[in-house]
């Protein structure tokens, strides 16, 4: 092993675990800077993504939409794909959701009624195979809560709780409905990354 490499590793690894998230939060813009500048210029729709487990928050911009899937990106081109406010993919977070089938999640959540749905997640297993994990999730409406949507403005939104189970473990999602739409949503797919809290800005 070359010494330089070790030095690079020694100096470069201190924040290794934060790398993906930092990329998300705006590291050096190393990929397609023109796209980002363009999006800012046209005032593309924005979304705030918070990662409480990592203590990070970032604004991402809508970079494109195709077949009902919205592609959001941060300044350094970490990406998030949503379909009807459900995360169906991420790119660049270190333990990405490669693909997901949220089933009837949106319909049940928006109905404001209790229900049960199935979610299927695909993540890389460390050996570049996709590990499929399916969850059965119970959806139950909760109380109304204030959701802050800008520095000065909050709205009262209905919280919908979603508890997902699988033989290998589970997680909890939460969604906030405002005027029949999902205004804010907390979704998990990787215990390593923890929940992602998405706030769709009007």
């Amino acid at each position, binding site marked *: 092993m070359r010494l330089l490499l070790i030095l690079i590793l020694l100096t470069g690894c201190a924040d290794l675990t934060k790398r993906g998230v930092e*990329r998300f939060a705006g590291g050096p813009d190393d990929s397609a800077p023109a796209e980002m500048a363009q999006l800012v210029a046209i005032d593309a729709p924005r979304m705030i993504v918070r990662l409480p*487990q990592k203590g990070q928050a970032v604004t991402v911009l809508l970079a494109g939409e195709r077949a009902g899937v919205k592609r959001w990106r941060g300044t*350094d081109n970490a990406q998030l794909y949503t379909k009807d406010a459900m995360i169906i993919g991420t790119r*660049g977070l270190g333990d990405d959701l490669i693909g997901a089938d949220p089933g009837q999640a949106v319909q049940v959540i928006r109905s404001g009624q209790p229900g049960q749905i199935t979610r299927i997640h695909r993540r*890389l*297993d*460390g050996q*570049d*195979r996709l590990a499929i994990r399916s969850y059965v999730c119970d959806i139950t409406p909760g109380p109304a809560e204030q959701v802050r949507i800008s520095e000065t403005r909050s709205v009262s939104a209905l919280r919908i709780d979603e508890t997902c189970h699988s033989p290998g473990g589970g997680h909890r999602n939460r969604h906030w409905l405002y005027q029949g739409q999902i205004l804010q949503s907390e979704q998990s797919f990787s215990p390593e990354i923890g929940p992602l809290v998405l706030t769709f800005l009007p």
Partner: protein
Amino acid sequence: MARVTITGAGLTRGSGFWAVARLLALLVIAVLAGQPLLAQEERRALLQEGMSHYGMPGHLEMPSARALPDGTFAFTITPGSHDVWRSSMVFQITPRLTGAFRYSYVSRYFGDGQSLYDRSFDLRYQLLQEDPHGWRPALAVGLQDFGGTGIFGAEYLVATKGFGPVTASAGIGWGRLGSYNSFSNPFGLLADGFRPRPESQGIADTGKVSFDRFFRGDAALFLAADWQVNDRLSLSLEYSSDAMRDEAERIGFEHKTPINLGLDYRLGDRGRLGMAVLYGSALVLNYQMALDPARPSAPSGYEAGPPAVMPGLSRAAAASWGSATTAPEADVRAALAAQGVALEGLHIEGTTAHIAITNTLWPAVAQSWGRTARVLSAHLPAGVTTFRIRSHLRDMPMREITLTRADLEELEYAPDGAWQAWVRADIRDASALPDQRGPREEPFSWRLLPYIEPGFFDPDSPLRLDLGAELTAEWTPMRGLWVSGGLRQKLVGNLDEATRLSDSILPHVRSDASLYAKQSGPSLRWLTAEYFTRPGENLYARASLGLLEQMYGGLSAEVLWAPPDRPYALGLEVNYVAQRDYDGFGFLDYRTTTGHVSGSYDLGRGYQAQLDIGRYLAGDWGATATMTRRFGNGFEVGAFFTLTDVSFDDFGEGAFDKGITISMPLTWILGEPGQTRAGTTIRPIQRDGGARLSLRNRLYELTRDERDAARGQRWGRFWR
């Protein structure tokens, strides 16, 4: 004296303790920095079972019948107050088979005051798996130091059972483990031959597998128990069957009691720190660390997101370029370069685009294909609906995949998109397809990097080190022809201080490494012209001419037949070489023809066997057997041995050539894409028998990733 060579791919090889230390440093980094928050639901507790001071799953000095979780790679270091130090590297080869390599130090072991630096191997097989709910204990049979000097040699049969927080083992040992309170060998009832244990001949026996001593001689019983006090702390108590006779005689060790006591503190689930009082007279510390090769620091990597699938350029935009057959090329080239892919040629025929590429960044070939397809969807006219992507490696056409716009649009966000893409890709061998590449864009490249070269196992100074700068350059005047060289200048170091000369009675084909290290001027590590080509389907060929490696120059030719849909591959390599002068610019008188017929067999689940039969550098004929476990992410652990017609006596210390190889992609640690690998070959000792050329770019390894991609491996990254 050990040696390090660096191949073109950046693979670093070395051997011995320093190599272990370097790797250990990397792995410590990996463990500390890379894997802190793995899923509770997925992360395996690797060191739920502790390891003994000998580096195998066990108690303090005594072994247990337990195994580590499959694939676990672990290290231990155990300094002791009685001037005995041990360090080991252990690998759970299969769910039941555990192997370890150990480096031990015993101060003033020899009569003349010299200390012992000992390299030894252990193997253990779990015959019965424990029934956690019933009565059945785990049962294992083990060989300790079966191929080293035999100083720590022992065999044992041990049963282990957990009772709530207590794990207890009882066993019978032979050799070192049959030396305290021993009794006549029970196997003696079967045959008288088991009663005596032939004396070890010490150094003269080094390296031979001591079949004639296995389970021979007196036996003794040992008992051990660990009590898990709480989640992290455990206490150990054992009754050892090791009388420490050798240590008592040679270094004045006092064996006051067979009872050993220890405590052990678990650091997360990948580390343990322990302390023990041994035989009433010594205090030892013990640190253990484990990693899971199957789990890299970032399973999906930290690289930026891919470009999106786009509808392509409108008719108007395409028309503005004029001729659609040439104009988009510069644009596509730039867009692909941003994705770590070099464009070698672009040719549009009606609605089909033929694209020749070289993957310059991605460890998983499928990912380079996925990124290429998406770039094409955006940067080619919308009317181009079929993409035929052909990948190249060292200018050899490798595979062609075909995907349509409709496929990409349908699958980009599909939950099973990766699987569907692989099914639809129609992967073919590209060897016979017409070449549509243009001239090379950048035929010359170079880089300057520091290097470090260790030397070790010299009893005068077990660790030596050189540090310097290495300049490598590569020139490709025509397709397939690669002229490259590597020049090193040592800046500081002490490898040249080695004074011991080789006592080998064979031609000194490897054992004069210290003479090569004495040169202070720049040293040309290699300077070769290599030609790569595909003679036919499933065939690969290479010819190399020049200074092939640090010690040899000449001509090397290789052909490989490796169908991706079969588990086997066959290779033939023939070399005519002359030994290079110690100063690196001329040749010595030694000339030889060396070469091998190689067969590889993929046993499935990542295990691969290889047999190389042929003539070695010293003119000896024989075979090398290699078994490698390769994880899906490219992490490899292997072991090999070579037997030739050189007798054990003529071979000298070690008896025959053998070793362990470890190789991992740097991506495994860093989480960033790249094709560089770090690795090391650990040989207990490097002699002249069974020695092979250290060639860069051997075809099997060079072409493996492409073949793996053709059979669907690592396609989980296609959409990453």
